[in-house]
């Protein structure tokens, strides 16, 4: 029977020859991510049930990130609970502060994401890992507790929807603009419960970092997972990043696999996009919204806090001054150091930006850039719900690092092509 890549990975994880959409399976978990806000409750649940073990201390990756370094006393208590547990169970891959980073940037960078594997994490953007031809999905704390104890989790095999990227991106247009265009068309529940399988020539031209921005936001269309095929670009990234375990299985969708729907996009026609408040589906071309005054620019997060994102922003900010407060958050310590070594920090400093330590922080209204009443923020993050980055009467406008940087310079929503085509 023909299967999609998602179905093949789940079949393997369930120890079955085949699975079909709608089928309930018990899947073996290859990597279990643990972060600071949602893992401590799982630890408490396990303790309450008298379960003081983990299924495999080498298949768990721990990093505090949402509120790290601790933003207040209660967050410090969460970190303490996570730290005590990780030490007690001798978790092999425990990234303590100094090496901790925004989880979905950190795990691929540190070589924990392999094709064909099932990765779960108590964070909705765990779907990011699908960029590596893996199955990644976000779960809650109870699911996490169950997975930590048993190494298994129940799943309903999702139907797949194909998202086809034709054409080629124009200068000044990035993968963030592409995924914002997708969500603008299909809506925030356009792929509810489904696997979004991204294919097409425009995708083949993208780097792994750019691809991760797309799979990262699959959840913003309601999807269970986002996934992409393995290719030379994937292989090269893995060759450079995998460390302890370098073998993996590559699955491909069969030509006659079944898809519930397909959406085609001509990427050559996509303009820089801005998702207006208060849904990620509020995307419009920058040409339709340019000129709106902003109070803050935020460049970071699991969506767009990787080194390529910082390079794109720095190129635009070079020898310029920002007109609004601009916060740059490299997503991991490695990215932070790389940005410093490449001289990007000098550019950001000279422009008047503040550079923060790796954290999810303000993306979810935690700290390091929270908005006051009535404030507007151009942000490279993934959500612009009411109150997402602070006061319930603040507003978040989602965009690429290029659009955020251009907007930072002018203090109002600005087409980045103006700066890119000039240089």
């Amino acid at each position, binding site marked *: 029977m023909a299967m999609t890549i998602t179905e093949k990975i789940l079949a393997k994880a369930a120890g079955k020859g085949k699975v079909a959409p709608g089928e309930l399976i018990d899947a073996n978990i290859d990597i279990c991510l643990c972060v600071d806000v949602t893992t401590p409750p799982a630890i408490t649940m396990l303790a309450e049930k008298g379960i003081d073990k983990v299924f495999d201390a080498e298949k768990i990756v721990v990093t505090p990130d949402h509120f790290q370094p601790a933003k207040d006393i209660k967050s410090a208590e969460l970190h303490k609970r996570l730290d005590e547990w990780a030490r007690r169970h001798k978790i092999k891959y425990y990234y303590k502060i100094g090496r901790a980073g925004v989880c979905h940037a950190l795990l691929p960078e540190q070589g924990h994401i392999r094709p064909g594997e099932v990765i779960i994490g108590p964070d*909705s953007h765990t779907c990011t890992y699908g960029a590596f031809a893996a199955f990644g999905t976000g779960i*809650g704390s*109870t*699911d996490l507790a*169950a997975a930590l104890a048993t190494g298994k989790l129940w799943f309903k095999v999702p139907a797949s929807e194909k998202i086809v990227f034709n054409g080629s991106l124009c200068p000044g247009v990035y993968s963030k603009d592409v995924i914002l265009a997708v969500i603008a068309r299909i809506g925030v529940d356009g792929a509810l419960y489904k696997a979004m399988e991204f294919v097409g020539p425009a995708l083949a031209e993208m780097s792994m970092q750019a691809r991760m921005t797309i799979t990262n936001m699959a959840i913003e269309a309601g999807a269970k997972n986002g996934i992409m095929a393995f290719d030379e670009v994937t292989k090269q990234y893995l060759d450079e990043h995998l460390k302890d375990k370098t073998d993996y299985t590559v699955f491909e969708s069969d030509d006659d696999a079944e898809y519930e729907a397909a959406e085609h996009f001509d990427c050559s026609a996509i303009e820089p996009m801005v998702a207006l408040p208060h*849904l990620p589906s509020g995307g419009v071309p920058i040409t339709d919204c340019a000129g709106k005054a902003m109070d803050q620019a935020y460049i970071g997060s699991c969506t767009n806090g990787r080194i390529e994102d910082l390079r794109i922003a720095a190129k635009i900010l070079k020898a310029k001054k920002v007109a609004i407060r601009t916060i740059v958050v490299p997503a991991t310590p490695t990215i932070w150091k790389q940005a410093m070594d490449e001289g990007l920090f000098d550019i950001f400093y000279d422009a008047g930006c503040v550079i923060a330590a790796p954290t999810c922080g303000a993306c*979810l*209204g935690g700290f390091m850039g929270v908005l006051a009443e009535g404030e507007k923020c151009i942000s490279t993050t993934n959500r612009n719900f*009411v*109150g997402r980055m602070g006061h319930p009467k603040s507003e978040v406008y989602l965009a690429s690092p290029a659009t955020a940087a251009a907007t930072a310079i002018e203090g109002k929503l600005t087409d980045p092509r103006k700066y890119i085509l000039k240089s």
Partner: protein
Amino acid sequence: MAKAHVYKRDHINTDEIIPARYLNTDDEAELAKHCLEDLDVHFVKKVQPGDIIVAGSDFGCGSSREHAVWAIRGAGVKTVIAKSFARIFYRNAINNGFNIIELPEALKKINNADELQIDYQNGLIKNKTTGIDIKFAPLPDFALEIINDGGLLEHIKKK
């Protein structure tokens, strides 16, 4: 009698259900104080134990925070009736043994402050205010099994 708190909105998300500024704790009573705060600041003052939230489609979209379920349950809410649910919220509710009802005509057949009586066994909502009986499809068997066992961890222990 359970009273319906109707929100005629789709995509009521986890940031509205429990804003991240309160996620520095996982204490259910503490979270409950801020339930639905960014959607309806008066909700926690209005809600009575056993009441019901009624909403549009894609309820609970956004973050994976199970705190959303805990905040709702902690506030005394007995169940959520929505046109549809976002998938992580759906899992989290089931895993916590918290019953939810998917009802495509939720907003058409239930008005704010209607008194409802729910028969989960037979998939029937009696709207005492309007006198209408509303049928609903019960959750799938695997989900009911988890709920009846008191949540996923108890369910696993039992297995």
